[in-house]
């Protein structure tokens, strides 16, 4: 962990974080900042509200007394810093920066009338959000500290006597299973940029079969995998399965001469 950040007293600085019990300061000017430290720092927050709460607590302030100008400056300086080191900031942090800047500018404008309505305080919405967030942040720590099963206490149970099994095992519906799988694939498509390539099932089945055979036999000749009733297609599928397995380096293939017998052996044997 590199938190040996050089500090120059002459420069304006603000304290950002306590890492491993040590306070880390990041000068706002162009000193070298270890990107790792900043990244870890950011990751210790649950979003912009959490970060703002930290700045506020840092100044020993009540949420109600926040000095929007100062907070905004700190926050924006911090965001700039992150951009400078080209850290991929979540959009929420940028939205908050814009929001704070808006509040700041509204507060610097002269008030139009003397309506002393609380609604006129540009900060009130921010304060409300900070307060609301802090409630749940606080209570979530309490919930985590409630003893829970499997972590703090355990359930007592005993072995069963023999009994006539009228117990029916749950059944699985064929169509349901494929529906669930296609939903999984769709979900994957949504959350990832790559799509799982869908391979022919028969190849998959052969792959499992070959691996299973290799557990028992250690060595198999390729032609023994093929069954006459499966015909040419069967040979091709077996061969594809073999190539897939080799690609994943799950098996070893040996063919000692051209057009000779292809020998498959389990990779496990090597170890």
């Amino acid at each position, binding site marked *: 962990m590199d938190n040996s950040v050089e500090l120059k007293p002459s420069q304006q600085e603000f304290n950002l974080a306590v890492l491993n019990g040590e306070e880390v300061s990041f000068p706002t000017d162009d000193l070298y900042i270890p990107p790792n430290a900043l990244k870890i720092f950011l990751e210790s927050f*649950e*979003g*912009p*509200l*959490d970060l703002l709460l930290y700045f506020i607590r840092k100044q020993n302030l*009540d*949420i*109600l*007394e926040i*000095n*929007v*100008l*100062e907070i905004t400056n700190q926050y924006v300086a911090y965001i700039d810093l992150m951009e400078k080191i080209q850290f991929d900031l*979540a959009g*929420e942090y940028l939205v*908050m920066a814009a929001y704070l800047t808006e509040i700041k500018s509204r*507060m*610097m404008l002269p008030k139009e009338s003397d309506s*002393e309505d*609380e609604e006129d*305080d540009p*900060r*009130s919405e921010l304060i409300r*959000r900070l*307060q*609301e*967030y*802090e*409630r*749940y*942040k*606080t*209570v*979530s*720590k*309490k*919930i*985590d500290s*409630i*003893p*829970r*099963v*499997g*972590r*703090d*206490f*355990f*359930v*007592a*149970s*005993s072995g*069963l006597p023999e009994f006539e099994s009228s117990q029916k095992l749950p059944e699985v519906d064929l169509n349901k299973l494929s529906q669930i799988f296609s939903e999984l694939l769709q*979900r994957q498509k949504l*959350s990832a940029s790559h799509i799982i390539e869908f391979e022919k099932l028969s190849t998959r089945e052969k792959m499992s079969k070959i691996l299973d055979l290799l557990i028992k036999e250690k060595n198999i000749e390729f032609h023994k995998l093929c069954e006459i009733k499966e015909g040419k297609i069967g040979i091709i599928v077996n061969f594809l399965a073999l190539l897939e397995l080799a690609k994943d380096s799950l098996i070893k293939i040996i063919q000692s001469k051209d057009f000779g017998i292809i020998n498959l052996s389990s990779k496990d044997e090597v170890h």
Partner: protein
Amino acid sequence: MSKLENIIESLYFSASRPISESEIVKILDDSNFDLKAVKNAVSVLEKKYQESSFELVKVASGHRFRIKQEYSQWISKLWSEKPQKYSRALLETLSLIAYKQPITRGEIEEVRGVSVSSQIIRTLLDRSWIKVVGHRDVPGRPALLATTKEFLDDLNISKLSELPELPELGSIPSEVQIPLLDEAQESA
């Protein structure tokens, strides 16, 4: 005929989940025990195991036996896997669901100020701590999330109101807010 208390004891020890008293009545079916007799027997059992390492406790979906917490240190040595530690993001999401249920994912995001990852929702669903109880009638029909009985069971509590109290929103008289505005400008 075995003693009622023993039958009930054997049921609790053999089920891998909490059982309710009415379920026991149903199992005893053709015997002559009614709900009152069962409730009596259960309360006898609740007091019975003071000298033992386990106790009968009431949770949301019934009663179950649990090992007294003082023995956890030995038991955790029995398990090779470390119990899962949950992230702050997950715990905050869970808290919002617990206290503001039913709630949509969007509403959680509004309070937390960040997006909630699908993974967190799925982990909570997998653990059976939350479930979908409906859909809000707005565009996109977002799912409404709520906590389950299993969640309460796992925390060993019998109803939601036994959760820690949610800290009050600091209620501040509106007069106090205006002077602060001036202060803020001064310090600029």
